[in-house]
């Protein structure tokens, strides 16, 4: 069976779903690989290097010519139309934003896996592309903030006076948030973080940062759901107070499958020191910060709000490397004897499967259609 790796066509996408090293892995598993010419250009993988790894470099998109198509972004609908029944596709599908595509895939009987639906169980970790890309986002978010900040992150005592360390506030301590905490601490900032998950407190402290405790206790549960009004009010107060004290705010709060919670209001931004920087990693799903727009820098008073769009793409070599391995590991879960045969009894595959045999298997998406 053949796996196809297209050059990404969505705007500003610089990653690629397979690299020469994962091509080697796939070929080792008995598969053949087609790579669209130029697919790895941003990830610094030349066509020759793919060839050297054993892939065939083809000029066109591999949809319709390979049984499996792996990509970072969802396929374009026109490419999806070329897929044949039983073909498999693996990508971030963001189904709620791609309903046309989902319909097409279902109609054509394609087995479509969306890595953003992957169950976060232990066994699936090596295929967990959300985690691996969030790692990149967290790291880059701090670099972005440091770059835009007109001041130092670390403290310096020098002959020309002492510069205090910058204060960084991280809202949401998931994978990206934790990595942002770690990176900001590396650069010498004083970091504090807030999250609604109970376990987050210990996790934040395990990185040497301060966790902001809401006096009021939240309902337990891995992911935060809607909360009581009292809770939300106390949360707003706390965040308002801490935002005003911070030089940098990095917000990463998200609730899977929903709009991101709004945590930082315009008033809060106005209370910040002039020149402060806010990086909103949740901008693409609605934003944690009022007024942030994905891919844009907005000045709110004297505060720069950077709404993030596809941050991993800004570091294509390593982001692709992690993603490509995730994809290879994911294919590994369903490859045997040189054939990719998904067993949908496997909870991991079942969870990640969006459409199969003409059916939309993901309930929330089905409801949206």
């Amino acid at each position, binding site marked *: 069976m053949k796996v196809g790796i297209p050059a990404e066509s969505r705007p500003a996408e610089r990653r690629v779903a397979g690299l020469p090293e994962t091509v080697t892995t796939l070929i080792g598993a008995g598969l053949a690989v087609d790579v669209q010419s130029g697919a790895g250009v941003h990830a610094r993988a030349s066509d020759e290097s793919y060839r050297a790894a054993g892939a065939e470099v083809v000029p066109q998109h591999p949809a319709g010519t390979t049984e499996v198509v792996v990509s970072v972004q969802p396929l374009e609908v026109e490419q999806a139309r070329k897929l044949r029944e039983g073909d498999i596709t693996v990508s971030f599908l963001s189904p709620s934003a791609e309903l046309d595509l989902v319909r097409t895939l279902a109609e054509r009987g394609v087995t479509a896996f969306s890595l953003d639906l992957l169950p976060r*169980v*232990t*066994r699936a*970790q*090596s295929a967990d592309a959300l*985690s*691996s890309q969030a*790692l990149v986002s967290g790291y880059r978010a701090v670099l972005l903030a440091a770059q835009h900040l007109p001041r130092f992150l670390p403290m310096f005592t020098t002959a020309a006076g002492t510069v205090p360390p910058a204060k960084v506030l991280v809202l949401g301590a998931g*994978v990206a948030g*934790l*990595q942002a905490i*770690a990176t900001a*601490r*590396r650069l010498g900032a004083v970091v504090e973080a807030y999250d609604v998950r109970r*376990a987050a407190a*210990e*996790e934040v*402290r*395990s*990185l*040497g940062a301060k966790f902001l405790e809401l006096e009021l206790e939240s309902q337990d549960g891995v992911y935060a759901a809607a909360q009581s009004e009292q809770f939300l009010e106390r949360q707003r107060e706390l965040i308002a107070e801490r935002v005003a004290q911070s030089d940098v705010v990095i917000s990463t709060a998200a609730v899977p499958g929903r709009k991101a919670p709004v945590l930082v209001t315009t008033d809060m931004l106005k209370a910040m020191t002039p020149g402060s920087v806010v990086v909103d990693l949740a901008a693409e799903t609605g934003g944690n910060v009022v007024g942030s727009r994905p891919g844009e820098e907005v000045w709110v008073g004297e505060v720069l709000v950077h709404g993030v769009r596809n941050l991993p793409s800004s570091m294509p070599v390593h982001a692709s490397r992690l993603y490509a391995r995730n994809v290879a590991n994911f294919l590994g879960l369903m490859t045997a004897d040189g054939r990719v045969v998904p067993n949908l009894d496997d909870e991991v595959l079942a969870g990640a499967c969006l459409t199969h045999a003409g059916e939309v298997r993901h309930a929330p998406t089905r409801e949206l259609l």
Partner: protein
Amino acid sequence: MNWVQLAYLAAALCFILALKGLSTPRYARAGNLVGAAGMALAVVTAFFSVTHNLVLILVAVAAGTVVGIPAARQVKMTAIPQMVALFNGVGGAAAALVALTEFLEVADGGVLFDVATVLTVLIGSVSFSGSVVTFLKLQEIMTTRPVLLPAGQIVGTAVAAVSALLALAVVFTGSSALLVLLAVAGLALGVLFVLPVGGADVPIAISLLNAFTGLAVAASGYVLGNTLLIVAGTLVGASGTILTRLMAQAMGRPLTNILFGAFKAAPPTAGGGEQRSVRAGTVEDVAILLGYAHSVLVVPGYGLAVAQAQHAARELAQLLESRGISVDYGIHPVAGRMPGHMNVLLAEADVPYEQLKELDDVNPGMGSVDVVLVVGANDVVNPGARDEPSSPIYGMPIFDVDKAKSVVFMKRSMRPGFAGVDNELLYNPKTTLLFGDAKDSLTKLLAAVKSL
């Protein structure tokens, strides 16, 4: 005559040095040899005072040797404690016999003589019968559980009272028959003393009986007017007492409890673990394990991060390296709670990148790793992920630390890790648990390894 005394004094010196040596790992073996040399000197010297029965005595010594050496040589390592108990018991018996014999030989030695004799016989018998019972327990010839006789306390008190009365009677009457009766009472007392002791406490009991025998020997020294016996016996009595206290402390059992008949059943040291037993070690145990290893693998996990123990871990590793031990860190892909969690921490602590090893670097050679130090990791070393298809973490690659020669687990409790599944490795006989906050434990370990 005088040189005989000097020889005895030299022997006594050897014994002191022997105990001193035995208290430090570096000189322990030498200490034992010095002790043996002192003993040889003392025994040879004693033969110069022999006027009768030389041949018979030599035969008895030969017989003892023929029995003792093979017994000591062939016993399995795991059965050594009961063997020590047995040796201790026969020593106690010998002391009692010596005093008894001397009592028979000497017409009237005065009150102090009588008192010393009575003490020797009583303590010697207690030590003998007590040791035999501990032997039976450890050898599992009888149950290892505490045996609580009905009205045990009362019977014990009664026997003790009878012994006391008999002892007084012997001192006042000088009757040998009563002395023999006293010996019998002592035997009973010894049995009653040890019966209620449960499995884990038996070594403490042996140590106490050992100190008893020392005292019996010292008392017999008074009986015979022999300073060597006094000195050596007292040394053993004193050091044995301290040692008993140290052992009790190490196991978290206050000695007073034990001394005052509270040899009741106690739960094993650790908290949960349902029925199954785990081995909890002390900082010193682990320090010696590490200090005498050739290669050590540190496997950090989320607990390292929670404890913020990265600096302490690096310090310990550096200390070990400075002692010529090779140390690596095994970094599991999902250790911690975010990708690269361990990298962040260890970079902060300035651990050289070259020491960070991945699964594939480490697992093939795991068999030759002397000690794996699991610092607050759990899921990432859980053999269930490899061996139990039913486990929720089945299929995750792990560090095969169960294949190393020994494993030290640092965690605070028996609670499971992130995945919430029990870890078979905790119950593995190779595993020593070091309970407590990882930073705390590492800091203590550092001090302990330094003082090796």
